[in-house]
């Protein structure tokens, strides 16, 4: 069964900005799902529609086969959302925030779970401070705790690790993995693509409000990812318009000051030599050359046309 099904969802803001165009997605129950896209692609709009803080202009969605728009309360009780923007109630402590949050989801107090969340998100020491006194990273962790306090079936995390240091990030992901292993479906947006690649078994990429691809992570990496020839020169490589045209067959781009050309493998024939010769013709002999397999970041950049 799908935890979440989105059909032809669209959003046009009052100023005419089209944020989502006919996006359809399936998030399988129990999956760890990465929703990726450049800034302004429509990820947050999509999440905010699911969270009911933005209204959709068209389309439908369902959570565990219940209509998200018609059975809002039922769906909301089973959904926990971590919003991208840090928000905190300045009057209360983290413990109070969590107690109120659980109550608002119609659930009786569960001090043991609140304690566990505070501990796992490393907020126990600060549980009685007023939220105003918490650092940015702590506030973000409190948002995660708030989203989990009513034990939702689907957790949606919109950039949950921005501003959280590496160690804490790792521990946060360990916790998410545990929840996922216990059956919670997790939908995540992040700018740390290596994290998405490591954590998620499903991935969708959206750009300019349109869905570009949605499939299992392994299948995306196997089918879409190709290899690249990367060449370094004495001076950091730069691409002029003429270079772009001359090397157009190889989708030239600059990555880590290197010139990278996509190698198109057709059957058993590789165009490694053609690509190398074409680059040599324009830039001369390189100091160093290597072939690297594309990772999620490369695929993402290529599919969304983003420049590094």
């Amino acid at each position, binding site marked *: 069964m799908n935890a979440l099904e989105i059909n032809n969802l669209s959003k046009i*803001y*009052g100023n005419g900005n089209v944020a989502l165009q006919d996006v359809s997605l399936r998030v399988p129950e129990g999956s760890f799902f990465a929703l990726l896209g450049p800034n302004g692609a429509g990820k947050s709009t999509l999440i905010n529609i699911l*969270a*009911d*803080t*933005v*209204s959709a202009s068209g389309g439908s969605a369902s959570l565990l086969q219940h209509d998200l728009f018609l*059975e*809002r*309360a*039922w769906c*909301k*009780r089973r959904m926990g*959302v971590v*919003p991208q*923007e*840090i*928000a*905190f*109630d*300045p*009057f*209360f402590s983290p413990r109070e925030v969590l107690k*109120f*949050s659980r*109550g*608002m*989801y*119609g*659930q*009786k107090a569960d001090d043991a779970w609140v304690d566990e969340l505070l501990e796992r998100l490393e907020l126990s020491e600060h549980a009685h401070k007023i939220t105003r006194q918490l650092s940015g990273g702590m506030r973000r962790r409190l948002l995660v705790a*708030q989203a989990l306090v009513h034990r939702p079936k689907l957790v949606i995390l919109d950039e949950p690790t921005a501003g959280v240091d590496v160690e804490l990030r790792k521990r946060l992901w360990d916790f998410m993995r545990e929840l996922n292993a216990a059956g919670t479906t997790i939908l995540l947006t992040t700018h740390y693509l290596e994290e998405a690649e490591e954590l998620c078994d499903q991935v969708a990429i959206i750009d300019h409000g349109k869905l570009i691809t949605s499939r299992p992570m392994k299948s995306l990496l196997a089918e879409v990812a190709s290899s690249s020839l990367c060449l370094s020169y004495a001076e950091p490589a730069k691409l002029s318009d003429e270079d772009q045209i001359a090397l157009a067959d190889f989708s030239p781009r600059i990555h880590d000051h290197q010139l990278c050309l996509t190698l198109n493998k057709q059957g058993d024939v590789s165009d490694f030599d053609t690509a190398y010769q074409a680059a040599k013709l324009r830039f001369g002999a390189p100091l160093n050359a290597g072939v690297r397999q594309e990772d999620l970041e490369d695929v993402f950049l290529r599919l969304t046309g983003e420049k590094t």
Partner: protein
Amino acid sequence: MSSFNIIGTWTLFQRESRRFLRVKMQTIVAPALTAILYLIVFRYAMGDREVPGLDVDYFSFLIPGLMMMAMLQNAFANTSSSMIVGKVMNVHVFLLMSPISASEVIFALLAAAVLRALVVGGVLLLILLPFSELALAHVWMILFYGVCGSLIMGSLGLIGGMWSKTFDDMAMVNNFVVMPLTFLSGVFYSVTQLPPFWQAVNAWNPFFYLIDGFRHGFIATGDSDPLQAMGAVAILTLLSVLLAWYLWRIGWKLKE
């Protein structure tokens, strides 16, 4: 499928009540002190004079009006500050995301606003009663106008908070709408003292009926017909609560 979220509504009511109890110097003590200062000043300025047209001394006339004014302003402040702080700090998204329906939200927020108004009114009454000859002529009337007035102001505070984008917008609503309407509603004078034109204008000020009716509950006399006023106030209460409910339901100025 979706039943009344009792725990959610109760929790929201608790949250909104604790918010004002946490800053009681500002929410209870300060309004009480302001009202007492007014009373001291007017007590000495007016002496034992009686209010023209009403068989009552000025001090007894003034106390219920000031109480009601403080209650109305506090009911307004509770919902409006909750909304505007929520919007500025982005906390209102948690309310939008939670499975609490529009009726439940309105019920909880208005219940907290009424509680704050009653606490402020109660504190003022306890402080001032020993120093005056004021009686409680019709307790039911005091409660009717107190609760209806708080519901109207709580609803207006909510709507004002939804409309405002900044603290400045909110201050504008408070200073240019709420304050003049409450001050010019017969708290400090009997409307019979006004020239005919201003009496006619005053007849359209809903705050006048709230304050006059509330005062009637204490001194058993007033400037308006109590039954007519009760009908108007009941209708106004219903309309303002319904408007707040409707605007919340459609996510007015909250959802894009």
